[in-house]
């Protein structure tokens, strides 16, 4: 494990903010278990819990908390200076942090999505949701990590993207779905385990290419912004 990965992971799990990751996945597992236990038709609760809660809320919100935390928290408290005053090419700082963010997000959301998929349909759907969510975790993490370098309010901007762009506009303006990571994840999961529970207008090739573009593009942006990282002017 690289030293940057080690410090990032220690920092992430050492902060209370990490506890914020737990309620949403637990809620999803709980709802899935209740629906299954009461024999509700998966056609009724599946889309709401798997997509409405799992892919539209749990995945992006967990990615937002972790993605803005791996570098943003260090920028906020100033500890980033310790890592930046080292003769490391900046990609060697960004990539390990992106790896931690995507890994932790994927691990956190894979379990509830797998459980939900299995209870609603099959093990295959569970695995498909977990795998697609892992890919989505990478794209979201790259986006939110870059946001923490281009703005001082990454969480706010991230929430606007998730709630307004993907959540609200995605329902009314179909064109916005082409720029929605959530839709890519649905398309990929549906391709891996075709089911009536998942539906999207975005094709698999578009989803694949766009996910790769977002992951690579925002990583390159983050590396470039970190290269020009300025410490905010202080009073003295």
């Amino acid at each position, binding site marked *: 494990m690289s030293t940057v990965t080690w410090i990032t992971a*220690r*920092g992430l799990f050492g902060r209370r903010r990490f506890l914020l990751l737990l309620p949403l996945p637990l809620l999803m597992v709980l709802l899935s278990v209740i629906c299954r236990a009461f024999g509700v038709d998966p056609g009724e609760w599946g889309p709401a819990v798997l997509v409405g809660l799992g892919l539209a809320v749990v995945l992006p919100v967990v990615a937002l908390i972790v993605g803005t935390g791996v570098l943003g928290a260090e920028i906020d408290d100033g500890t980033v*200076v*310790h*890592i930046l005053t*080292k*003769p490391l090419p900046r990609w060697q700082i960004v990539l390990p942090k992106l790896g931690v963010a995507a890994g932790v997000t994927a691990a956190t959301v894979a379990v509830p999505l797998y459980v939900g998929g299995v209870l609603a349909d099959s093990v295959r759907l569970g695995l498909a949701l977990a795998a697609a969510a892992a890919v989505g975790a990478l794209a979201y993490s790259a986006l939110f990590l870059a946001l923490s370098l281009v703005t001082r309010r990454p969480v706010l901007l991230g929430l606007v993207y998730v709630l307004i762009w993907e959540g609200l506009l995605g329902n009314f303006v179909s064109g916005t779905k082409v720029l929605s990571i959530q839709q890519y994840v649905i398309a990929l999961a549906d391709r891996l385990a075709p089911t009536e529970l998942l539906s999207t207008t975005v094709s698999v090739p578009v989803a694949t290419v766009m996910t790769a573009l977002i992951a690579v593009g925002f990583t390159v942006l983050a590396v470039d912004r970190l290269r020009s990282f300025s410490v905010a*002017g*202080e009073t*003295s």
Partner: protein
Amino acid sequence: MTATSTDPTPAAVRATTSTLDLAGVSRWYGNVVAVNDVSMSLGAGVTGLLGPNGAGKTTLLHMMAGFLAPSRGAVTLDGQPTWRNPDVYRHLGLVSEREAVHTFLTAHEFVVASAKLHRLPDPEEAARRAIALVELEGAQERRIGTYSKGMRQRARVAAALVHDPQVLLLDEPFNGMDPRQRLHMMDLLHRLGGAGRTILFSSHILEEVEQVSGTVQVMVAGRLAASGDFRTIRRLMTNRPHVFAVRSTDDRALAVALMAESSVSGVELGRAGLTVRAGDYGAFTRALPKIALARGIRVQQLVPEDESLESVFSYLVEA
């Protein structure tokens, strides 16, 4: 602790020294000019960057350390720009003013992590040496979150020194240190400077700079106000005219008497009392009670008017 463990130049006494050059460096934020056309060249030894709060010291240090792009001019370390050039950190260490440390790590973990990030061949040994330099061995296995401010500062200094840099920049390093830690830090900087390192530390406290460095750069309002040997600058500061506000039972009579005193260069009679300009602080404050007593005047108030560092530094700009 052994003598070798605190030696700032262990196996690697380098023949060459590094030079940090600033050529016509300015930095502005919108309409506000934080640093205005500063040029200086820093070589081996300890240099103090002195100036009141808000003078632009931190902005200047950040530009030196590659954390801020100059709006104009160039900052180079041995000819290499410090901005957007992580390679300079092979030879440069920074201890910033902001008390930011990974509080969840122990000092040992923190310094070893720094050594690893520098890709040093033996991180453990480098960390042991750096921790010994700042005398933090006893507490190195405790989490930094449990440290006092001075101890955190020392942990940060150890991390900045772990790769044995030729240039060390410290922003207000004595803040929050107790007198013993302060003396130790001063001694450490002395030794590092004596061993051929280029050390620059900022401070707004005259006495700190006086005790540590022979060379000073004085900044006032973003400009380099004075530069050079500390004793020369200190003399300029001591010999500047002092202004006192004086109130007495008979201001007019006291004004007449004071004009005959050689240490007084001017007296102004106002409604609120006298404003007295004195060339020699000590001579005037000794003479005033005698003069008043001889004339039966009671001095009700004697207040030095411009003893703030800002006014001292402003005087230097004009001098």
